């Protein structure tokens, strides 16, 4: 496996889901991404996100990409 590339991107998916009282499973069913992959995203283990996945998440949660991802301070 190639070495991890450090980054400071934080995924706020769990906060957005909590605000909307939605479960990860419900979001997965709605956007057609597996729970496993969404869990990877939610638990900060994702290394890359497809634009199509990001579009689907923003549409389902009625939010902007900047709501889903933030840059942690250095």
């Amino acid at each position, binding site marked *: 496996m*190639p070495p991890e590339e450090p980054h400071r991107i934080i995924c706020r998916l769990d906060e957005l889901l909590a605000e909307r009282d939605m479960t990860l499973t419900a979001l997965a069913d709605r956007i057609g991404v597996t729970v*496993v992959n969404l869990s990877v995203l939610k638990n900060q*283990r994702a*290394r890359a996100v497809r634009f199509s996945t990001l579009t689907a998440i923003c549409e389902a949660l009625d939010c902007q990409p900047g709501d889903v991802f933030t840059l942690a301070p250095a």
Partner: protein
Amino acid sequence: MPRTFGRTDYAATRLMLGIAVALPPAVTIGLPLLGWAKGEPLGWSGQVGHEQDLPASLAAAGPGAELTWDGTANLTLAEPDAVDRLVALLPGAAGSLLVAAGALLLLGFVRRVQDGAPFAPGSVRVLRTLAGLVVAGAILVPLLDMVADNRLVGAALTEGAEPPVSATFGFGWFLLAVLLLVLAEAFDRGVRLADDVEGLV
């Protein structure tokens, strides 16, 4: 993640592989053992070690054609002993057990494909093991055939007659093993590519 096989296709594939696991040993081991238990005569087809022109009384050759008999005889031993029976069983048993082992490996491989993760180290190991099984069969089965031929044809010939000692190895099987190893290397590259996109959502 979408399944790669449709439900019916997946079930049919698993059924065919399951049949490949169970049927060859049942035929090559089960049926001969049943015949043994019933005390049936032992049939065998083997080389008597001679090749000769086919007499015209059996089959007349047309113009420009030659007909020879390669020495294959169908023999029946009315009262084979236990060693005769076991020796007759060995080539088919070895071949069918190797086929069953290969089919079992493929069941796991197909499940991995169905789960959407075909490029896993386990898949590479399956393909390399399949190549090993093919080579093992390509060497072992002809050798066991030779042993059986020698024993059973010898038992069927009159005293003093020399039973043949020869094995025929099929080049095609070794070529198949090489192709499986090439496929394993391709899957190994695939494992590394899959690693590169690990964590891609």
